């Protein structure tokens, strides 16, 4: 995850507390989604950014996940997201994040 984004997420978590923050991921591949998920939960796996060694433990979901999709106006989802869901490895991303949550 981008070092600048890591810094902003860390700042937000420190300012507002972890309980009121959900991270919505939009990464295009399974690998990048996993890295982003790991970064905001157990810390930056590359040990390069502000979240290196920082276990924020934030809840994180990808925009393709069914519970996120259910919370979005279907017309807006179709207009803005559906083509990406069809064109990217959406199923693999959803499965990978479910697997990571299950530990």
């Amino acid at each position, binding site marked *: 995850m981008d070092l600048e984004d890591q810094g902003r997420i860390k700042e937000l978590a420190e300012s507002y507390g972890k309980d009121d923050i959900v991270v919505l991921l939009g990464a295009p*591949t399974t*690998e990048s989604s996993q890295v982003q998920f790991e970064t905001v939960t157990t810390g930056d796996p590359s040990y390069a950014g502000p979240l290196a060694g920082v276990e924020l433990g934030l809840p994180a979901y990808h925009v393709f996940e069914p519970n996120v999709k259910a919370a979005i106006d279907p*017309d807006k989802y*179709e*207009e803005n997201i*559906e*083509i*990406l869901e*069809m*064109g*990217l490895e959406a199923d693999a991303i959803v499965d990978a994040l479910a697997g990571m949550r299950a530990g």
Partner: protein
Amino acid sequence: MNGYRSTLPDLPGRYKVPSMPTNRPVIRGAATALAHTPSLVRYGSKPFREATAKPDFLTNLTRSLWSYNDACRYLPNQVFIGSQAPARLWEVEQPWFDKLADADGGEPPFGHILEERRFLALLACADPFKHVLLRERFWEQMGPVLEAARLTAPLASRTPALLTDAQMDAELESSNSLPLFAAGEGAPVGVVKTGHSEDEALSASVLLENLCCKVSGALAVHELLNHVDGLGPSDVDLVLSCSEEAVGDRYQRGGGNMAKAIAEFAGCDLGTGIDIKDFCAAPIPAMVIGASLVESGVFENVVVVGGGSLPKLGMKSLYHLEQGIPVLEDALSAVAVWIGRDDGRGPTVNLEAVGRHPVKAGAALDKQFRELVLEPLRRLEWGIDRLDRVVTEVHNPDITVSAKAGDVAARNYKMMAAMLAMAKEIDKSDIAGFGRAKGVCGYAPTQGHIASGFVYVPHALREMAAGDIRNCMLVARASLFLGQMTELTDGMSVLIERNDAPQ
């Protein structure tokens, strides 16, 4: 448009079909050249930086490089030079690097794989300013070898600057020089000196990079000349280089002209040359410009050439070393395409259907493909069924999958198919099979301008001649944001069609 709304005006009729004069431009030939240069991998951008930081990197790198024989037995390389059809890539399970096999022993249809020592000797032949100096003994071996081959003889007419062993030892002590190694040779076979002590644009590494492009580009032009009828070196009016290198000096780093250097070295003595720049997309604008110049009658025979990119060698080598697989980015690749007036046989370049990427279109992949693929089809009032082949970014997945970057071609085809499904051009159930139905499996080295649809032109010509396809759309994209002058991307597409296609 079923929920997919562009911020631009509706597609049909956005651009007018231009009215054209009558010099219909056709592709009269295309060729490729591949220089297997494992000892130059150390001077790729990533390996060079790694070697500077970690002294043991070069030892590991050298152990993981292929021999020339291995490179010749590698399926993607065989497809690159036309010894195998691209369809063969669907048949052989990936990865391919552990399935080396001889192709049939015939003459490669598009071009040869050049062995490293020949290429290094040509670097010195191509250097009018004598910054590349060869060991005398090396040239005594290689001069006759170059002279004896049809491909290299015309490029080896100039005797390079030579050094005795003692002179070479003294030259190698200079910290501004780069030694040139060759597999199987104990000591460096040559050295590249800096062009100017106070000009970074003329450093030894920049000169080496540019000379690699010049030589590989000229090799592709000569492969073209050797493979076609009706085009001698002096018949070439204009060379358009779509290479990625920037020739220049400290006052204008990218202001120079690679095309004319290639034209001169290739013996195109009555031609001139200009560079067309657009990152990895450059070959398609270059083809469109070249075809337009033929159509207008300004030039009769235009050769579009993309030379090889030294900085991209070993770009993913860290991943390859980590996984204990060969460092697969070990060859400089080049392509040359001849665009001329209609001979009644060559595929036409359809200038009525040039796809473009307007500023306002946005950088998202689906939006790019909408502009580059769907818009030109709608302009021609074609359904997708009428398009037989669409080719974009056919990077070799052996290289990218092992580097955790995925299969670039497969990813592009899936997104292109999703866009076409949203536009009701195909059924959603056809998304998964779209790549196989209309596309090509990746096989090109990760030198982006070559891996763009450009590399496929010789195959497209062969498939059209055989009646396998009626047409082929070449689609190239460019990451303009890398230069940090804009956050945009760019792209262009062009449709080529069998000469007898209905107009």
